[in-house]
C-alpha cells in the first residue's frame, strides 16, 4: 500500500517539499548567510549539480550514455576564454555566447557519434571529447598543452574585490543550477518528457507507442550542450585559467558526475540532488585519502548498481515516497483501467521482434 495514502505520509511529503523550498531560499540568500569558503564550495556544488542533471537526462531518460560530457564543458571554457581574452568582448556577453558555441559544436558531434548506438555510442562520445581536447591544445593563443591564465581585467569585470567576485560566481552558479533543474523539469513535464519517461521504462514499447526515439534523443543531446558550456565558463572563472587537461578533465566533469547520478538515483530528478550532497559529504571526509578516495567511490558505485540500480532515490521510491519534484501526469481512474487492455494485444508482437533483434554479431 502506498505510504501516501496515510495522513503521516502526506505530512512527510509536505515537510520534504517545504525543506526543498527553504533550501532554495537559503541558497538565494547565500551571499548574506554563508562565508566566502562556503560560497566557493557551493559554487562547485551547483556546477556539479548542473552537470549531473544533464548526464542524468541523457543516461537516465534518453538512453544516451555519454563518457564525453567533459568535451562540451571544455568547449564552453575555451569559447569563453577566446571571446574575452582574445576577441575582447564584454565578459557578460561572452557567457551566453559560450553556451551558443558549445551547442554549435554539439551539432556536428552528434551527427557523427549518433551513428553508433548504446555501448558504442558511449565510447564514441569519449573519442569525440578527446578530439576536442587535443584540438584545444593546438589552438593559437590558448597556451597550448599547458594552458594559460585568464587576464586580470576580464576577471575584474565580475567584481573589483576577491570577496565580491566570490559572490558573483556563487550567484551565477546558483542561477545556472536553477535554470538547469527548472528547464529539465519543464522538459520532463512536456510532451517530449512524457516520451522520455516512457523510454526510460521501456524503450521498445515507447517506440511502438509512437514516441519518436531519434528526434527525442537529438533534442535531449542539444538541450544539454549549452548547460555544459555554461558550466565550463563557471569552471574557468573559478580556476581563473584554461588548460586542456583541466578544462576537459574526464575525472572532474564526467566520472564524478556519473558517481553522483548513480549513487543518488538515475532516471529521477531527485537523484542528482541526493547524489551531489552525498558526493560532497564523502569528499569532505575522504578526500585526504588521495587515490583511496577514488577506489572507495568506484567500489560504492559498483555496489549501488548491483544492489539497487536506481540508487538512493530508488530505495525511497520502493518505500512509496512519491516524487518530491512532480513530473508525472496523473490520469483519472477510468482511463487507467482501459489502458492496459488496449495494449494487451501488442505484447506477443513485441516479444517476437525482440528475438529477431538479438541476432548474433559474430
Amino acid at each position: 500500500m502506498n505510504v501516501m495514502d496515510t495522513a503521516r505520509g502526506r505530512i512527510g511529503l509536505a515537510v520534504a517539499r517545504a525543506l526543498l523550498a527553504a533550501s532554495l531560499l537559503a541558497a538565494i540568500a547565500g551571499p548574506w548567510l554563508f562565508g566566502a569558503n562556503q560560497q566557493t564550495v557551493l559554487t562547485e556544488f551547483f556546477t556539479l549539480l548542473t552537470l549531473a542533471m544533464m548526464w542524468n537526462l541523457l543516461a537516465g531518460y534518453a538512453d544516451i550514455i555519454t563518457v564525453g560530457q567533459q568535451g562540451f564543458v571544455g568547449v564552453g571554457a575555451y569559447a569563453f576564454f577566446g571571446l574575452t581574452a582574445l576577441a575582447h568582448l564584454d565578459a557578460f556577453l561572452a557567457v551566453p555566447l559560450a553556451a551558443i558555441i558549445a551547442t554549435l559544436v554539439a551539432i556536428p558531434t552528434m551527427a557523427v557519434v549518433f551513428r553508433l548506438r548504446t555501448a558504442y555510442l558511449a565510447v564514441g562520445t569519449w573519442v569525440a571529447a578527446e578530439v576536442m581536447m587535443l584540438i584545444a591544445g593546438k589552438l593559437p593563443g590558448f597556451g597550448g598543452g599547458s594552458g594559460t591564465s585568464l587576464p586580470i581585467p576580464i576577471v575584474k569585470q565580475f567584481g573589483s574585490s576577491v570577496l565580491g567576485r566570490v559572490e558573483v560566481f556563487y550567484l551565477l552558479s546558483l542561477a545556472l543550477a536553477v535554470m538547469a533543474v527548472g528547464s529539465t523539469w519543464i522538459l520532463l513535464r512536456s510532451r517530449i518528457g512524457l516520451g522520455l519517461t516512457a523510454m526510460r521504462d521501456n524503450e521498445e514499447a515507447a517506440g511502438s507507442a509512437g514516441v519518436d526515439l531519434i528526434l527525442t534523443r537529438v533534442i535531449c543531446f542539444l538541450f544539454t550542450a549549452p548547460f555544459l558550456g555554461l558550466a565550463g565558463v563557471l569552471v574557468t572563472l573559478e580556476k581563473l585559467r584554461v588548460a586542456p587537461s583541466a578544462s576537459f578533465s574526464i575525472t572532474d566533469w564526467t566520472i564524478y558526475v556519473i558517481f553522483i547520478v548513480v549513487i543518488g538515483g538515475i532516471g529521477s530528478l531527485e537523484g542528482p540532488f541526493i547524489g551531489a550532497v552525498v558526493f560532497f559529504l564523502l569528499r569532505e571526509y575522504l578526500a585526504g585519502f588521495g587515490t583511496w578516495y577514488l577506489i572507495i567511490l568506484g567500489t560504492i558505485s559498483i555496489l549501488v548498481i548491483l544492489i539497487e540500480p536506481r540508487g538512493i532515490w530508488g530505495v525511497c521510491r520502493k518505500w512509496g515516497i512519491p516524487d518530491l519534484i512532480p513530473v508525472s501526469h496523473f490520469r483519472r481512474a477510468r482511463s487507467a483501467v482501459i489502458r492496459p487492455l488496449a495494449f494487451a494485444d501488442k505484447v506477443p508482437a513485441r516479444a517476437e521482434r525482440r528475438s529477431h533483434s538479438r541476432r548474433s554479431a559474430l
Partner: protein
Amino acid sequence: MLQTILNLLVQGVLIGGLYALFALGLSLSLGVMRFVNIAHGDFIVLGSYVLMAVASALGWSPFVVGLLLIPAAFAVGYLLQRFLLQRTVGKGILPVLLVTFGLSIIIQNGLLETFGPDTRKLSGGAIEIAAFHLGLVDIGLYPLAVFLVAIASIGGLEYLLYRTSVGARIRAVADDPAAADLIGLTSANVYAIAMGIVGVSIMVSACCMSVWTNFDPAIGPSRLLAAFEAVVLGGLGSLWGTLVGGIVIGVAQNLGSQIDASWQILAQHLVFLVALVFRPRGLLSKG
C-alpha cells in the same frame, strides 16, 4: 623521402598487430556478451604490472612468465564474469557499463597506489633491437613477431569459435541466451568461458605491449579507445576486421606523428571519426 614514408607505413602496419590484439578481446565481449568493457585497457595495464612484478621476482624472461600467467588470466576473466558481471546480464547496457567503469577507476588508482606513477617498460632481451633490411625498409624482429602473434591469435580464436564444440556453445549463447538455456546450455557458464578467453587475449596483449612500449597506471583508457576504434573500423563482430582496423590506426598514428608528437593520437581519432561518417559499418562493408 620515399624510404621514410615506406618505413612509416611498415611500422604502422606492424604496430597495427598490437592494436588488433587489444581489440580482439573487446570484439569477443561485444559479440558474445554485447557490452563494452570500459576497463578493457586498464586490465591490459594491470596484466602488464602483474607480469612485471612476477618477472622481476623470479628473474625470468617476461615472455616465459607471460605464458605461465595465461591460465591465471583465464581464471580471472572467468571469475569476473561469473561473480560480478553476470549479475548485470539482462538488465540493459547501463549497469554493465557502469560496473566496468567503476572497475576502471579502481584498477587505475589501485595501480597508482601500489606501483606509483612512474613509467615502466619490460626488457625482452636481444629480440627487441634485432632488425633486418628488406629492400628499402627496416623491419624490427620484435614488431614482426608481435604481428605474427596477432595473426595467430585471430586465427586461433576463429578456429575456436567456428570449429570446436566450445565455440559452437559460445555462438549459440551469443545468438540467443534464452534458447541456449532451454536446450541445456548454461549461458552463465558459457559467458564466463568467453570472458576467460578475453582474459587470455588481455594477457597476450599485456605481454606484447609491456616489452614494446612504456606504460603507467593511467594509460588504460587510451588503450581502450584504440581497441574500440579498431573494432568499429574493422566492422562489428569481424575478428579479421580487427586486424584491418588495427593497421589503419597504426598507420594513421605513424603518419600523424610526422607532423608532431601530439598529432599522433589526434590523427588516430580523426581517421576513426571520418571513417565512422562514411563507413559506419566498418571499412570492409559495402556502405
